[in-house]
């Protein structure tokens, strides 16, 4: 059986990782990769595992849900689509776009629409909090992968225009500047 990706969601508390990984171990699955984050006290975990050859997706899903969902977790299981490409090879360059200004509905939608229109990929999106209650201190950070076929002049121009329309301060900077300053 091919690899599967398991998504686990639920209110964060001690023991979630333990419960999920113990269940996977008992099912004979090999844990290949894992990532987790906590967003406003909500746990979200992603586990890529290689199940035993004789296990079906349905069996795996049923057993895993029985062992985790009674504790209030939500579990999704999907087959991993293997493209054959190495995941650590990123073509193109990464730019970090930050918008600073008051929060408003549809902010991310508006910018991500432009980014999608130019076929650029957002590889990381996060809200950055400076602390305090200043509404102008809202920072959204987008890491955008720019492949060589993308016209950065037009894309960045469209993003800057949108920021101006929305009254936001925008900065688009190559990732290396953040590396140079922070990764010593």
């Amino acid at each position: 059986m091919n690899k599967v990706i398991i998504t686990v969601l639920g209110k964060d508390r001690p023991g979630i990782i333990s419960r999920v990984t113990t269940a996977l171990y008992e099912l004979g699955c090999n844990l290949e990769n894992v990532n987790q984050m906590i967003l406003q006290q909500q746990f979200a975990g992603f586990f890529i595992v290689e199940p035993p050859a004789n296990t079906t997706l349905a069996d795996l899903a049923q057993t895993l849900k029985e062992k985790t969902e009674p504790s209030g977790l939500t579990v999704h299981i999907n087959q991993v689509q293997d493209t054959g490409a190495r995941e650590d090879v990123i073509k193109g360059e990464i730019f970090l776009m930050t918008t600073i200004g008051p929060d408003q509905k549809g902010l991310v939608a508006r910018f991500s629409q432009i980014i999608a229109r130019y076929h650029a990929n957002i590889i990381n999106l996060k809200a950055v909090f400076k602390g305090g209650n200043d509404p102008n201190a809202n920072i959204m950070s987008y890491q955008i992968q720019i492949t060589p076929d993308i016209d950065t002049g037009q894309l960045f121009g469209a993003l800057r225009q949108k920021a101006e329309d929305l009254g936001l301060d925008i900065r688009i900077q190559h990732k290396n500047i953040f590396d140079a300053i922070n990764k010593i």
Partner: protein
Amino acid sequence: MFDDHEIISTIEMVKNENLDVRAVTLGVNLFDCISHDLPVFKKNIRKKILTHAENLVTTCDAVGDKYGIQVVNKRISISPIALVGACFSSDQMVEIAQELNDIARQVHIDFIGGFSALVEKGIAPGDQALIDALPQALAQTQRVCASVNVATTRAGINMDAVLAMARAIKKAAALTSDADGLACAKLCVFCNIPQDMPFMAGAYLGVGVADAVINVGVSGPGVVKRAIERNLEGQPNLNLGDIAEIIKRTACKVTRVGELIGREVAQNLAIQFGVVDLSLAPTPTVGDSIGEIFQALGLTTIGVPGSTAALAMLNDAVKKGGAFASSHVGGLSGAFIPVSEDLNIAHAAANGFLSIEKLEAMTAVCSVGLDMVPIPGEITEECLAGIIADEMAIGMINSKTTATRLIPVPGKRAGETVYFGGLLGEAKIMTVPNSDLCDPFVKYGGQIPAPIHSMKN
């Protein structure tokens, strides 16, 4: 991936703390342009400089845009004109300056440096012609910067050259009396001039350097000041050792930014990368000041007791941080204290906290010297030469670079305001005690011998 703190601190450095790359300076060797025929020489230097500099400004802007860090000044340094134009007369030297000014305008740079002579051990005919040409050359051009090295630790101080420079400075000031002696703001007198400095007015391309080279001058006094303030707000019990460590780390970050951008500019222009000069260089803007760092360190203002110690600590921490960040550090690398170019320092001088004597003492521990100091126009040439000689002596004995960029403002006295404009700023004229003396000391001429510790071999 970057955490919140990394993203915020980087944005803050650029947005609120004036982090930028202060200068990308393209050095161009002119030795292969030499000709005894002035029109041919002018044609050669134009062709050579344009070949390398045609895309300098657009490349710097594109790289700056990519990283969101502005390259504020794009400049050119050239081989010393007194060497490559050694066969020309002083009138012809003035023509060369005009040609350089025109080339600078054509490639959209604000300054071209290298109208220079190296005379620490004697004055050759080409050097003499250049020194004689200085007042007219600087008065008739806007973008040409000149420097004359009159002393080194190895050679001693050429006192004939010191006096000649005092006279040249007085003449240059007189020729630009309607602009408060502005020509002198483009003229530095040096001891131990570096061959690879990207900062004006003293930049020139040394004779032991490649045919073309990109040198970068970083800045960031605002970033250093905020780093000190931020840490003291969070931890009021920090001691000076801790603060020096904070300055060092901050200088390291700033230097890495400069090297990243400089290397990319060099790569895009297919020109060798030279050095990062990690000097803290101020502008006449609030928040971009060396003077404000003294206040962040707990001093009333620059110039009060404790200032020399604070500057020594700052200068050393900047060097250490920069040296860790880059293996190719050069130029002056330290902290500048130019009076008119730093709003805070200009205020300290105007309000009586900073005297010219204290400024001279401070130059013993920082990276330049009496920089952008407006002084009364009536100062005698003997007194002016004496101030220059004193500053050269500090450099010679301490094996460091020192320089003077003194502006004797015609028709104005101590306390009056001068305005140079732009990055050169404005200030009140500083008091120079005993500026009316005509002591013969500097007129004895000759060479003050090199110090004993020059005999290192």
